[in-house]
């Protein structure tokens, strides 16, 4: 039998020959060393070629999927920034101002283990920060902010646009309106304005499911009431995204920090100021700073120098859980009972600010003394928070591929948990931003922080913490 053609031999390798020809070629190969050598060589070449391929690591796929998601859904990214910037700025300012305006009820359902973006985020009530996680459109955020401000802010505080335009411009407009109104409330704010550094603007938020203002009261009663504080740096076009983080903007944010600290100190010393009145009567707004990224915002706030390398910084607000009827009170009264402090700065709480405003120096000192036990308690909580931060950061780093170090995509993670007086931590919820599509790691985080979690707390006088971290 003559040798088959090369086409037929190759087709035999590929299994593409009809059954009768396949058998014939097989029979031929049994007795033909030259054809067999050709087949063996070809198979070796192709086996070597196939095996030389080393697939990308899972890390690289995470990165790819994140980039692809942002490219496929550019509006998603924009929304992500919007939704991210709000709580970032809010938390940033809350820390700077030392004002606790969160009153948190039952935490939202756990989202541990789910892939962000794969299912709706259900809130049991919402802080502004919740909206960015669960909001479906920019207009929802705008409407939520506007609705609640209309409900909770004193008359004339804000004249908000009713537009439901789904764009960041709506947010800009809303923020500018708030900014404009709030900035007229006192000399302190005016000073900050003149310093070109800061506007304190007003808004608040409640209820997680959108809805009409008419339903707002109900939601306030049966869920939580939230508000927060924020900053809007004027002179840069209002709310903007996508700006490069520059040294100039960094310096400006540092100026903001300095001015705010100074203002808070003066308020805490009992110097008269109309600012605390605004704080007392208004639910403050989350206005994004012009820093364009969480990283940028973070770089201007306090960083935990003891944190591991993978942890850039974190913010947190802590609230006293309300188990009595106070918890159903509207936002503008609830905010008076909150706590707040900066990560290590020892700034004053909203309560202290409010109390100190009408008293003299001795009164301020008295308040300071009275606050000492609470400060100790906070220090303890700080330690617990630090543990959790480090556990999560370590977990995040453990996901990195050896040799790739810290090149993982940055991710803003919000962690909510409660701490009992004995330090017991419970009700931990880790939330990933909706724009980190495909990026799932929460099972690992849950496992890592599991040792710190106790499902039930015996003492009702626990505090609830909401903490945002940027991990990279």
């Amino acid at each position: 039998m003559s040798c088959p053609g090369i086409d037929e031999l190759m087709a035999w390798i590929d299994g593409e020959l009809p059954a009768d020809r396949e058998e014939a070629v097989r029979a031929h190969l049994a007795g033909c060393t030259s054809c067999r050598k050709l087949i063996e060589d070809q198979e070796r070449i192709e086996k070597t070629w196939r095996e030389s391929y080393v697939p990308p690591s899972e890390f690289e796929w995470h990165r790819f999927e994140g980039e692809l998601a942002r490219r496929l859904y550019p509006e998603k990214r924009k929304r992500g920034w919007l939704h991210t910037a709000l709580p970032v700025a809010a938390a940033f300012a809350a820390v700077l101002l030392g004002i606790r305006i969160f009153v948190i009820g039952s935490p939202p359902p756990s989202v541990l283990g789910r892939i962000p973006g794969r299912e709706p985020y259900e809130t049991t009530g919402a802080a502004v920060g919740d909206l960015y996680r669960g909001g479906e459109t920019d207009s929802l955020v705008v409407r939520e902010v506007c609705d609640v401000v209309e409900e909770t802010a004193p008359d004339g505080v804000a004249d908000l646009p009713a537009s439901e335009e789904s764009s960041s411009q709506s947010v800009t407009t809303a923020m500018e309106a708030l900014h404009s109104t709030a900035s007229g409330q006192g000399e302190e704010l005016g000073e900050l304005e003149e310093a070109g550094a800061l506007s304190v603007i007003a808004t608040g938020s409640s209820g997680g499911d959108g809805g009409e203002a008419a339903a707002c009261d109900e939601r306030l009663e049966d869920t939580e009431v939230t508000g927060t504080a924020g900053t809007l740096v004027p002179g840069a076009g209002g709310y903007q995204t996508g700006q490069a983080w520059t040294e100039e903007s960094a310096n400006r944010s540092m100026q903001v920090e300095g001015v705010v600290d100074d203002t808070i100190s003066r308020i805490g010393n009992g110097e008269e100021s109309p600012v605390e009145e605004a704080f007392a009567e208004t639910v403050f707004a989350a206005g994004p700073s012009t820093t364009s990224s969480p990283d940028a915002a973070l770089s201007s706030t306090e960083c935990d120098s003891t944190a591991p390398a993978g942890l850039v910084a974190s913010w947190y607000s802590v609230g006293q859980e309300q188990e009595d009827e106070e918890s159903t009170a509207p936002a503008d009264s609830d905010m008076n009972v909150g706590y707040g402090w900066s990560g290590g700065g020892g700034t004053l709480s909203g309560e202290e600010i409010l109390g100190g405003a009408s008293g003299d120096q001795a009164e301020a000192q008295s308040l300071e003394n009275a606050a000492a036990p609470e400060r100790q308690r906070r220090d303890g909580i700080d330690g617990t928070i630090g543990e959790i931060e480090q556990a999560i950061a370590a977990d995040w780093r453990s996901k990195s591929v050896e040799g790739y170090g810290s090149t993982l995509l940055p991710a803003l993670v919000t962690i909510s948990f409660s701490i009992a007086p004995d330090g017991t931590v419970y009700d931990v919820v880790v939330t990933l931003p909706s724009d980190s599509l495909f990026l799932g790691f929460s099972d690992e985080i849950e496992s890592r922080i599991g040792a710190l979690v106790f499902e039930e707390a015996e003492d009702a006088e626990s505090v609830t913490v909401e903490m945002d971290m940027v991990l990279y």
Partner: protein
Amino acid sequence: MILPVLLLSAMDADGDLALLSKARNGDRDAFGSLVRKYEKRVFRVARRMCMNDDDAWDLTQDAFVRAMQAMDGFDTRYRFFTWMYRIVTNLAINLTEKRRRRGEVAFDEEYGADGRQAVFDDVAEKVETVQLADAIREAVAGLSPPLRAVFVLRVDSELSYAEIAETLDIAIGTVMSRLNRARAQIRQAVGYLLGGESE
């Protein structure tokens, strides 16, 4: 060629058409599922065609972006994965020819997607295999893009002749002739490492 394809597509045995239908209606998760299902295969074709990681990542991303943009016009008589292969192969051929015209050479020194080489148990075999793999890589890089595409789709993606024909929109006979030419060129290029005369 089309008939079995039509039958397969009609059954939608792999569930891709159902996902595609959802994706067309704006279901991002459905498209995400398709991405996850095929991203590795698409990347491998891109990687093999471009011979470097950076281009491969870009092409893979471009391929899915184009797929999303064009999915409304996708002919559901065909299979989604051959369509994806077609997109990425065409993108790779275009890029390769563009680079070739410009005299650019862009392939990694290492042939692992992340710069790592495959590990072999036996040291002697490793040396020999690494040499052979290196030679094959150079030989494949020397193929014209149309020949390389057929070779990659057959050897890496393990597509049948009919699937390759569908992917590249060419006749099965053309697939066979291109594949044989590609294989012959590679055998000739690496024959000195195989010992003896292979043809």
